[in-house]
């Protein structure tokens, strides 16, 4: 089991979640955060922090987001995705993107 960041994070990247992670398992890409499944301890503390409710326990992922488990794992291993442990500003056009769905094609690796 792990926790998974769903598509809702794409192009917003609020980063509130990284502040509370006790094991520093978030990795940062250009317009998305991912969870390293080998580090996550399923504490669930990050879930209520996300302003767009992007984070789910793997088993609770909505049907249309289940592909994100594999994508999280894959992105976490990319060498250019670095550990992020301190909150920073969201992406400049987060307001415009936060309520959109089907953002997967926007994801930059």
């Amino acid at each position: 089991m792990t926790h998974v960041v769903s598509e809702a994070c794409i192009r917003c990247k609020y980063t509130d979640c990284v502040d509370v992670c006790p094991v520093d398992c978030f990795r940062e890409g250009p317009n998305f955060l991912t969870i390293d499944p080998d580090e996550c301890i399923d504490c669930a503390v990050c879930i209520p922090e996300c302003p767009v409710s992007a984070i789910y326990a793997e088993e609770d992922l909505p049907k249309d987001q289940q592909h994100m488990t594999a994508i999280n794992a894959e992105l976490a291993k990319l060498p250019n995705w670095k550990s992020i442990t301190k909150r920073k500003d969201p992406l400049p056009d987060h307001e415009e993107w936060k309520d959109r769905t089907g953002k997967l094609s926007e994801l930059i690796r």
Partner: protein
Amino acid sequence: MTASAAPSPLPIETPALVVGAGPVGLFQVFQLGLLDIPSHVVDALPHVGGQPVELYPDKPIYDVPGIPMCTGRELAEALLKQASPFKPGIHLSRTVESVERQADGRLLVGVSGGMRFLARTLFIAGGVGAFLPRTINLEGLPAFEGTQLFYRLEDAGDLAGRRVVVVGGGEEAIDMLDRICRATERNPGSAPAHLALVHRRDAFNASDEALERLRLLRAGGAVHFTAGMPTGIDTTDGLISSLQLLTPEGTPGTEPLDVLIIAQGLSPRLGPITQWGLAMERKQLVVDTEHFQTSEPGIFAVGDINTYPGKKKLLVCGFHECALAAYAAAPIVHPGRPVQLQYTTTSTRLHQLLGVPHPGRG
């Protein structure tokens, strides 16, 4: 188990030490008390209640048996009250640093601030870890903790005539400035020579009410604001003389100081628990579901920090674990004494322990 250098004061002897004063740790104290096992409890936070109080004190909780709704803060208060007949020693703002088995089987537990416990049993109710202050990573800075670098106002001592820099961009930093200014109002002699707030830019993540307080403090001249990201420290004669900054314009800046207070809030850290040599799985303590004992006899793990097949991180599961762990500890604490299952409705002995009147036969 890590070895600890022995500080001087005599350790506090206790049948049980509970690490973590969250809901589960507090209920562990209660369950131990019912089995006539007095305990001490330590927590990194300055208050009891753990994660629910630190992260979401006013959010309603709906899944505690028999309590249709309560907040995290109310739950913590109720659990503390429930445990109070057993008069636990409660030690706050302290973290456990080492655990070492003694020749007689007891555990010598080293706690921050030079405190030590000699415990027959240890209950780790550490949740997601100790809530510790977020720091800034600057080369050479940690060496000044306690002399020029502080995370709590109480530790910073006398600020009179000193140049004080508070670093932070949220509610915590504003509260810190507020407290310093209120202390100055009460006692003008305690005023810092200069009070500065440093944050990477002139925008703060705080409630409207806190932002208004900050605006007033700045408008009144009590607080000076400098925009910049800390990048290093300058030292003179072995003391920090200023903070090096990178301004939002990308140019270097400095902020002179005598005292640096970092007020960026707290974040949970699993920390030293992972280094005690206990069996772990995905950074959680492996326990058996009969005793909730770790791989070390006499060391139990309850609540969110443990793992076992089917584990669910729910309050109700943590509470159940406390009961079974207390029963498992009883033969270690009271060898040879039979462990009887008793009910708080009927048991004279439990009424005695709880300090409540024993109802006569009607």
